[in-house]
């Protein structure tokens, strides 16, 4: 069934997005920064492999331990180096202590092969609740092989 694995893929992408919080302390600059990037690695024995890369054009500290991120891009990799997923947001406010990110702007999530994509405008990501809400104009595109089951 086409819709089946697709949603699982969706979960994987969302999981990846949420997992970004796991390395937040390493990923964000302490002060203002431009063209920043930060990398998190796998646990041993794959400690040489990049697990996730967070990058952006600009990161500005805001009152209340918030960050204003511009052109945020998060890339998640498998332990073999294969790109698993990418999340991009032109702009968002991120509260690393609360594990909350939100924006009225656009959000795009896609699997590494581009066969699963979700985009929308306005989002709220709450790590503690493990929830992601996309508020407007949500569009999910799934490209997967589908099989026509045969009767036995």
């Amino acid at each position, binding site marked *: 069934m086409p*819709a*089946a694995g697709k*949603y*699982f893929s969706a979960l994987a992408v969302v999981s990846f997005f949420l997992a970004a919080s796991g390395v937040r302390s390493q990923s964000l600059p302490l002060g203002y920064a431009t063209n920043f990037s930060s990398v998190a690695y796998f646990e041993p024995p794959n400690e040489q492999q990049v697990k996730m890369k967070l990058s952006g054009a600009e990161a500005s500290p805001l009152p209340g331990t918030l960050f204003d991120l511009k052109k945020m891009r998060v890339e998640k990799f498998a332990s073999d180096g294969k790109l698993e997923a990418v999340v991009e947001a032109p702009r968002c406010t991120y509260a690393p202590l609360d594990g909350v990110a939100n924006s009225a702007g656009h959000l795009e999530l896609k699997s590494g092969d581009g066969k699963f994509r979700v985009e929308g405008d306005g989002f709220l990501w709450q790590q503690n609740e493990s929830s992601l809400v*996309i508020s407007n*104009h*949500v*569009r999910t595109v799934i*490209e997967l092989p589908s099989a026509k*089951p045969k009767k036995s």
Partner: protein
Amino acid sequence: MKKIFLLWSVIFAVALAVPAQVSPPDKKSLTRKTTTIESDRAEFDLNTRRAVYLGHVKVDDPEMKLQCEQLTVDLPADGDRVNHIVAEVNVIIDFSDSHGQTARATGSRAVYHYAVTGAVTNESVTLTGNPKVDSPQGTLTGDEIAWDRATGHMTATNQKMIFKQNLNGNADTNASAVKLF
């Protein structure tokens, strides 16, 4: 109709749907397709492994189109196959059968269920809430309409089937319908 079976299987099949046996797909039968889901809003809950699409939900697929106001997808914890999908509120499913004839299924709720028990795969769809299936051949209504995905059987409780009479052998005939039940 194929796609209906592909995307929706009934969980509340009651005693209507016959458990189906489906063999695994062979590689030659695999084709790549694109499915698009549009909605006003979407909520992903990783704790419950549930995705909910809300507001003007539209599923566009090469073999079917679905509209509803809420689409809930429960993701299995240990597999890659969705086994439970619920479409609610003003559900409209447009699909084509194997002969290319289009049909429309409507209702207030549609539930897809997929389960494998041993070598037997059950995949079904149940429509409730004034369910109705309109096709060139006729209209089926009932308290509940259930599809068995593998057998292609469609059954209904308290069913009423209205066949469209074609006196001229012309599909575009305006002949009045014949009420059989």
